[in-house]
């Protein structure tokens, strides 16, 4: 079916939060209204807290991978990194072993190290990001299995599990997501690195000719993405109170889906954290709604798949704009 859009928005999506993301806001509100009408307990504090808790890990991953997608790359290793860093953190989090900060820092650093390898392979060896991170996905999963001997790493200190608890009725993972999103959004808008991420994804040749060290910018994106995957891995381990070498399968795809629903272009250069958060929320609310409506989980997957494609198609129709005028 052709996706005709002669409508030409005078302004193209920019760095501003939620700019041009009205369609998703509307979809989100409409969905919430329908759910609230069908299931009054959708709006209950308990349920909303639940939604926020459930989207936190996908949210942290999605914010990180937004940076990579903005440069026109992709990171498929996130799910495996979540498992690996969870195992690393769990190993260091037995009661009385180390101070709380050690397992958290170790998880994040392990993620950052893998991200650095991704970045180095992409920028130094010129391997396409799809392949580089696909290799990392397999290798990191293997490493997680080696480190854990294929079994969940249990006996976790309660100090760490509190990372998945509540503070003043708000889930801590949601607070972490909020902090991460705010920091990355600020970075994209206010740091030179943020601007350069857009430039590299928007036109790599032009960025190079403008004197930007393109490879360094790309490397930074993978590093950030890996570090946030590490953070997500620690939070997940805290939530399930074990380091699971088999955790996080296909998490990267959920994260990428949320980012793309949020309006970041797979080809890079356009998008941002605001849209990504909306995408994450939309996916979370859909999942929650299907649960409330007692849709069996197998069917839920079908619905989710359709919605991912539908959302991006809808977005394309409303954004193709700039392309048409003799670009």
């Amino acid at each position, binding site marked *: 079916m052709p996706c005709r859009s002669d409508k*030409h928005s*005078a302004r*193209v999506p920019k760095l501003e939060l939620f700019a041009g993301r009205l369609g998703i806001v509307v979809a989100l509100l409409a969905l919430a209204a329908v759910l609230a009408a069908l299931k009054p307990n959708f709006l209950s504090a308990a349920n909303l807290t639940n939604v926020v808790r459930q989207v936190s890990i996908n949210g942290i991953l999605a914010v990180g991978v937004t940076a990579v997608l903005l440069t026109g790359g992709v990171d498929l290793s996130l799910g495996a990194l979540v498992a690996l860093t969870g195992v690393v953190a769990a190993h260091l989090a037995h009661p009385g072993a180390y101070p709380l900060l050690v397992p958290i820092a170790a998880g994040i650093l392990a993620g950052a190290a893998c991200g650095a390898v991704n970045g180095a392979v992409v920028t130094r060896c010129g391997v396409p990001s799809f392949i580089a991170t696909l290799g990392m996905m397999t290798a990191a999963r293997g490493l997680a299995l080696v480190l854990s001997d294929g079994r969940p790493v249990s006996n976790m200190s309660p100090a760490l599990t509190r990372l998945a608890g509540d503070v003043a009725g708000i889930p801590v993972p949601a607070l972490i997501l909020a902090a991460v999103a705010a920091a990355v959004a600020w970075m994209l808008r206010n*740091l030179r690195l943020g601007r350069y991420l857009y*430039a590299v994804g*928007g036109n790599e040749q032009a960025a190079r000719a403008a*004197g930007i060290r393109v490879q360094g910018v790309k490397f930074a994106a993978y590093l950030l993405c890996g570090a946030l995957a590490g953070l997500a891995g620690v939070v997940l381990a805290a939530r399930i109170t074990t380091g699971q070498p088999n955790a996080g399968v296909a998490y990267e795809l959920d994260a990428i889906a949320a980012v793309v629903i949020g309006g970041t272009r797979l080809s890079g250069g356009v998008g941002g954290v605001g849209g990504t958060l909306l995408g994450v929320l939309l996916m979370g609310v859909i999942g929650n709604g299907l649960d409330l409506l007692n849709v069996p989980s197998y069917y839920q997957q079908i619905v989710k798949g359709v919605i991912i494609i539908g959302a991006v198609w809808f977005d394309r129709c409303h954004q193709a704009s700039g392309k048409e*005028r003799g670009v």
Partner: protein
Amino acid sequence: MGEILRNGENRGNVWLEALGVSKSFGGVRALLDVSFELRRGEVHALMGENGAGKSTLVKILAGLHTPDAGEVRVDGRKVELRSPHEAIRHGIAMIHQELMPVPDLTVAENLLLGREPCGRLPGTVDRGALRREAGRLLELLKVDLPVDAPMRTLSVAAMQTVEIARAVGSDAAAVIMDEPTAALSDREVEALFRTIRALQARGTAFIYITHKMDEVFRIADRITVLRDGVRVGTAPASGLDETRLIALMVGRELIGGRVRGRAVAGESLLSVSGLSRTGAYRDVRLELRRGEILGLAGLMGAGRSEVAAALFGLAPAERGEIRVRGRVARIRHPPDAMGLGIGMVTEDRRADGFVPLMSVRHNITLASLERCCRGPVIRHAAEAEAAALAIARTGIRASDDGQAVVQLSGGNQQKVVFARALMSDPEIVILDEPTRGIDVGAKAEVHALVAGLADQGKAVLLISSELAELLALSDRLLVMRQGEVVAELDPLTVSQEEVLKHAMPI
């Protein structure tokens, strides 16, 4: 302009027509009530500044846009062209500015792409018939190309010929060409014109968009001028001259000739000796002084852009010495060059000039963002101020500085690239084809900008394929041929013919 711009007589020959066509893009008017006719066997040039609506009009005829109002007629019958495919079915083919061949297929396979002769089994291709048919088509065009060569081994000009042959092979009665000679050498242009004339004799009609004046008067039978989305008029090419045509395009008369007097050059800012890169240029020596414009003439492939790329660190030279302000400089990346006070406007602005979906403001400050920063943090107010200043200086016309650069006309896009290069206040400015593909009005503005740079005491290296431009602006003129600097000429006294004589390969 009444009497010369009336519609031609003998309407019986009209084959393709647009009647009262209008088109807007989200409130921005691109075309208003434009009528246009193409007769069998004519070459009809479509002229106008960038943004005049030429591309929109031909895209409607090629089925890429649907008009908001008005209709298209083929052979007197109204047609709906909803896709390029339908346009081709009606015999209208478009050769795009950026060619789109399949590089790894052979010439023959590209020529008959989508219409391969069937073999004995369904779904198979009769390769013998494919090669014969391809050979027949090329013969028709009187060109000699190897049908079995992979497309990627061909020159741009040869690929273009294949595209034309493909259009003709699909029985196109009208071929639309959007700036076909932008990337061709003079000799290749000649070959293209021969091909066009051969097909014209067989009744094929051409719509020909170009900015090059000399070409129009050599190839076109009639000329239609558009301005701001409205048709100014149509006239036989023989009834117009260059001055008149430019006046119609811009709505005012422009004065041609020398833009500036001879500058008093200051001390040497950049000197190059023995600069070499295998297969690109050999033993290049040049000197660039404060306050002067050094022109660099030559044909495509003479190595001019490659030398410029070396000076800016985009593709370093293999041997030779570059001195900036007397000191030996090592330039490996653009940041090295920028650190030495060198700025550059690159040859192909679409490829490496600007970030299309980024705003005017962000594009302008991209190369010197650190000037509007405290440490790594951008100071948005300072950035906006710097961009506003640059916009005013270079005369960029945009709705506001948040508009995406891709939405600007070619001339304004080029001014954005200028603004970016000048933002770091370089003393040495390299300009590679600064007016390629921009309209005459914007060209004059860019010329004034370039002259202004030299007047401010900057040293300018100007590469251009338009000799008139080089002669109008340069203080000294070097000619490159096949990778070597072969002559230094005085642009105030030398003729275009003489420059060309030096530039032509022997």
